[in-house]
């Protein structure tokens, strides 16, 4: 396995210098002559009819070019074909505080902001729904008329025989878990620049160009085409550098559509950049989730059955909701061997910003519940939590009871790694011996997994999910055209590595042109951790095709069979004739081969030196061409440089290009049941973690001392990147475990800022020790699987289990804020309750609370409109509030 020249080596991201120097351009860095700035007017009400919009005063303001409203682009769209329920700007109705009402386009940001104040909107308020369990009871004033009871989608799955499974169990535990809402908060706020080109034939408005902070350029092109009534080929979407996504840019965000509509109306380039507050309203993060979970187990630790009822507080639009609720059920499978599964999932609409896909999509909150409950079961049957997990491993290759195909499976090794590194046996449950002070330590373990790309694309078809073109020209430069969207995870570097490895050339030869719908073949986007597996495989195939052309031409040249041609490190040689290792560079081979003619034995001049003198006068390709000609004339050789081989292949083929594409195999596409399309993947990543925490019994403050995190990524194509992804995932999981959550008041987000949301800084971030486990997947490119999402979910239950080990309280609501932990400790000790969590016991939460539970705002929130339905909670049915 060490026999690679580029794969498996720690390589700097190929775009790292553009990031560290500030040279690279993100969407908000772009500028066009005549560019106007768009600013969006947002709804101040959670649920209201728009009676009228009067923009005349705004339009009259000097510097305002256009005001765009819903009727300018009323076509509905949504990321899922089954969820087309959004419009660019609200038509008739607003559905959350922050919903998009109008957009002012002006010559400057400050004028646009002034103009927003001048737009008069008349609203008629409707009762609003903030709690999913209340929203599900609603019969009138529905959020979307076509969704009775405000249920976006519900699924009811039974695999195996759960009833029998529970009957066979020696013990079972059931309980309600609540995971509060979190968001991506990528460092780059969303930004979009849109403009039209003129059509040379008609002289009218022609093609639309959109440069946007997106993970999914192809889907953006598709949705723009729907909303603007334009054919897709008349729309070009370009992804500049993207400053992080985590799922928040994996669907079409309102400003992307609004900018295009505004550019059409204003007849000028329009750029819109969200403020940080707007990013929080745009959201599409992980929904607040209620999980009623029951798990049965035998005395020997074997899990017999799982039953889960999951309610997701999805916000005002479908977004990815149908997929999220399916992932929550489907990925109960494929981590452990569970013979019987019952799943009831409800995706519910509420009058809050729409939730969507976030790192670990749909799996994270359910995994928190499951891994916590597994520890409860272990305690109940008196088994070590690590052993319970070892007892329930899959035996791959396997197909789970819900139709998921598992091939490579590094979970056992992941468990062993963190088990031994954390000195589990010696330390678990023993960290507080003799400690009478308030600071208690504990260890907790948890596992998780994730797909390496969804086996079925959002827009169902049998077409490939990724296609990659590679071109090599006579300069010896390799150019990869890939639709893969690098959002910081390093996909550009990944494709460059794969191509360089296959072609046997140095990575510096490789340039990557990515994510431009005009230039690059389709890749469906950077989401569901699909890029390395799918785009990597497409790259591998494209490179293989081009390599075959080079190798067969080289074989002819060297008078040998194609199988005898070796390509590596910029050298091409016949088997057994490998150039000595110090001639590693192509130039060196060329020079050494031609050196004898230039070498003077008397002067003893270095052959390298002599040739370099020549190359000083005659640059690059001309010299190379002449040298190549000389070599050509001299008949067959045993070896040649990469460039020579390329030239030879161009002479034979006329042009040198390769194409590869990837579609998941049919046997990996899952079961035929309704909703069975979500969850299947060609491969799954696996993770195991141990958390060591310190809990202050007096304040309830939890600090994580250290995390041991093992991740099975198949093969680590670039270990530095893999480690970065794994650590980043665990870190994000810790944010959700300890401090990040949305805090609500009457549908208004109270903490829409980076500090208020409490994104952890360096002083709050513990050491995370990463172990890479390489299970080498049979279908992944060089055996690689995903590395960016699978580790997130385990962090939360690992911390929960560690808190239990430290202070003996089981937290069933996350994040584990000091309020919740202290309430739980006081409840356990039978001490007087303090109403820090609205009177709710965090070890036994019964419903979602509007405030997220951290702080009670009763009577202290912002002044609400006198007609605000939350003020009339007592008289309007189905409305929550204080």
């Amino acid at each position, binding site marked *: 396995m060490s026999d690679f020249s580029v794969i498996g080596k*720690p390589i*700097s*991201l190929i*775009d*790292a*210098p*553009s*990031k*560290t*120097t*500030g*040279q*690279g*351009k*993100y969407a*908000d*860095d772009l*500028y066009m002559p005549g560019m106007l700035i768009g600013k969006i007017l947002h709804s101040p009400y959670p649920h209201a009819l728009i009676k009228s919009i009067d923009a005349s005063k705004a339009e009259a303001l000097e510097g305002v070019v256009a005001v765009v409203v819903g009727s300018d682009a009323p076509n509905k769209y949504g990321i899922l074909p089954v969820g087309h329920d959004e419009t660019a700007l609200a038509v008739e109705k607003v559905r959350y505080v922050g919903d998009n009402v109008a957009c002012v386009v002006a010559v400057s940001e*400050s004028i646009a902001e002034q103009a927003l104040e001048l737009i008069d909107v008349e609203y008629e308020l409707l009762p609003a729904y903030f709690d999913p369990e209340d929203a599900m009871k609603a019969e009138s004033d529905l959020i979307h008329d076509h969704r009775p009871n405000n249920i976006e989608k519900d699924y009811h799955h039974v695999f195996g025989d759960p009833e029998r499974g529970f009957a066979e169990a020696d013990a079972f535990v059931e309980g309600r878990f609540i995971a509060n809402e979190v968001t*991506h*908060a*990528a*460092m*780059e*706020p969303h930004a979009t620049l849109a403009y039209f080109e003129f059509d040379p034939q008609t002289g009218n408005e022609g093609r639309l160009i959109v440069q946007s902070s997106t993970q999914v350029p192809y889907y953006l092109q598709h949705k723009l085409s729907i909303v603007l009534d334009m054919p897709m080929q008349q729309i070009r979407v370009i992804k500049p*550098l*993207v*400053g*992080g*996504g*985590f799922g928040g840019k994996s669907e079409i965000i309102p400003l992307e559509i609004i900018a295009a509509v505004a550019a059409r109306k204003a007849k000028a380039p329009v750029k819109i*950049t969200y*403020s*940080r*507050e707007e990013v929080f309203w745009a959201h599409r993060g992980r929904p607040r989730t209620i999980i009623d979970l029951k798990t049965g187990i035998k005395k020997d630790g074997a899990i017999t059955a799982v039953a889960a009822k999951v309610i997701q507080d999805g916000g005002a639009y479908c977004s990815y909701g149908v997929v999220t609720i399916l992932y929550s059920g489907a990925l109960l499978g494929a981590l452990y061997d569970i013979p019987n599964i019952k799943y009831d999932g409800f995706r519910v609409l509420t009058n809050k910003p729409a939730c969507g896909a976030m790192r670990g999509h749909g799996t994270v909150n359910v995994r928190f519940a499951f891994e916590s409950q597994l520890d409860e079961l272990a305690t109940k049957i008196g088994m070590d939590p690590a052993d319970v997990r070892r007892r329930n491993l899959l035996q791959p290759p396997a197909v789970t009871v819900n139709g998921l195909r598992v091939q490579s499976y590094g979970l056992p090794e992941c468990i062993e790694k963190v088990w031994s590194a954390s000195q589990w046996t010696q330390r678990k449950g023993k960290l507080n011996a003799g400690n009478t002070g308030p600071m208690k330590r504990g260890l907790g373990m948890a596992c998780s997994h994730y797909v390496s790309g969804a086996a079925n694309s959002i827009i169902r078809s049998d077409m490939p999910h990724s296609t990659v073109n590679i071109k090599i020209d006579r300069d010896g430069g390799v150019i990869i055209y890939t639709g893969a969207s690098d*959002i*910081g*995870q*390093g996909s550009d570097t990944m494709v460059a590595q794969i191509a360089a490895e296959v072609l046997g050339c140095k990575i510096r030869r490789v340039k990557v042109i990515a994510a431009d719908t005009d230039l690059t073949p389709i890749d469906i986007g950077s989401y569901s951790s699909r890029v390395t597996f799918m785009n990597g495989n497409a790259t591998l195939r494209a490179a293989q095709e081009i390599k075959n052309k080079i190798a067969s031409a080289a074989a002819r040249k060297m008078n040998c069979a194609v199988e005898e041609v070796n390509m590596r490190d910029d050298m091409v040689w016949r088997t057994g004739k490998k150039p000595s290792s110090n001639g590693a560079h192509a130039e060196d081979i060329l020079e050494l081969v031609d050196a004898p003619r230039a070498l003077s034995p008397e002067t003893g001049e270095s052959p390298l030196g002599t040739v370099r003198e020549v190359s000083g006068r005659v640059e690059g390709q001309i010299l190379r061409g002449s040298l190549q000609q000389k070599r050509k004339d001299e008949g067959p050789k045993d070896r040649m440089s990469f460039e020579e081989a390329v030239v030879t292949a161009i002479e034979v083929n006329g042009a040198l290009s390769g194409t590869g594409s990837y579609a998941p195999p049919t046997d990996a596409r899952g079961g035929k049941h309704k909703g069975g399309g979500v969850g299947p993947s060609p491969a799954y990543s696996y993770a195991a973690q141990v958390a060591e925490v310190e809990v202050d019994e007096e304040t309830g403050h939890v600090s994580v001392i250290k995390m041991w995190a093992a991740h099975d990524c198949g093969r680590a194509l670039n270990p*530095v*990147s893999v*480690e*970065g992804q794994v*650590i*980043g995932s*665990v*870190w*994000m999981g810790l944010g959700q475990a300890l401090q990040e959550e949305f805090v609500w008041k009457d549908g208004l987000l109270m903490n829409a*800022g*980076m*500090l208020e949301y409490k*994104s952890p*800084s*360096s*002083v709050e*971030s513990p*050491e*995370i020790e990463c172990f890479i486990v390489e299970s080498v997947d049979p279908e992944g490119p060089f055996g690689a699987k995903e590395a960016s999402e699978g580790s997130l979910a385990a962090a939360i239950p690992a911390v929960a289990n560690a808190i239990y080990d430290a202070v003996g309280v089981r937290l069933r609501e996350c994040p584990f804020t000091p309020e919740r932990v202290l309430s739980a400790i006081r409840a356990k000790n039978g001490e007087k309750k303090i109403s820090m969590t609205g009177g709710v016991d965090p070890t036994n939460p019964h419903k979602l609370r509007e405030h997220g539970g951290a702080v009670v705002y009763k009577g202290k929130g912002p002044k609400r409109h006198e007609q605000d339905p939350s003020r009339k909670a007592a008289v309007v049915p189905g409305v929550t509030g204080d």
Partner: protein
Amino acid sequence: MKKELIELRVNGRRHELAVEPNKLLLDVLREDLGLTGSKRGCDESSCGACTIQVDGVPMLSCTMIAASYQSEHGEHEITTVEGVAERGALAAIQKAYGEWGGAQCGYCTPGFMMTVKALMERNPEPTDEEIRHALSGNLCRCTGYSQMYQAIKSAIEAEQKGMAAGR
């Protein structure tokens, strides 16, 4: 608002600019000087993506009024991330961030460059604790900061060995 003429020194060069008196320094750098390396991440000096240096001190340009940092007598020497690379080569810290994975999406990276450069100049041999505290005003959502610490240590080592420039 009527524009006024101001004079700024940025990355060793003098600029005369006509800007609104209330215009933020970050906006002047990005819009009037085209120095888009400094990023806007939060609008309220809580994320650090807009960090620049004024006379070697890291500051948050998203809440600074440009007109307050005029250079009349050579003071207020402003350095942005575009001024970090040395003589056409990456500075040690820039190279190290690439090699150790300190930058993933890169949006927070310019801010970190300015903060870390200031740390290294102020304190050439910082302890782990000092590094953590120095970075605490800059947020990153990708890395969990771990690989940044490795990058910073390796950059310090490289500088000490006097091989700051690239290969």
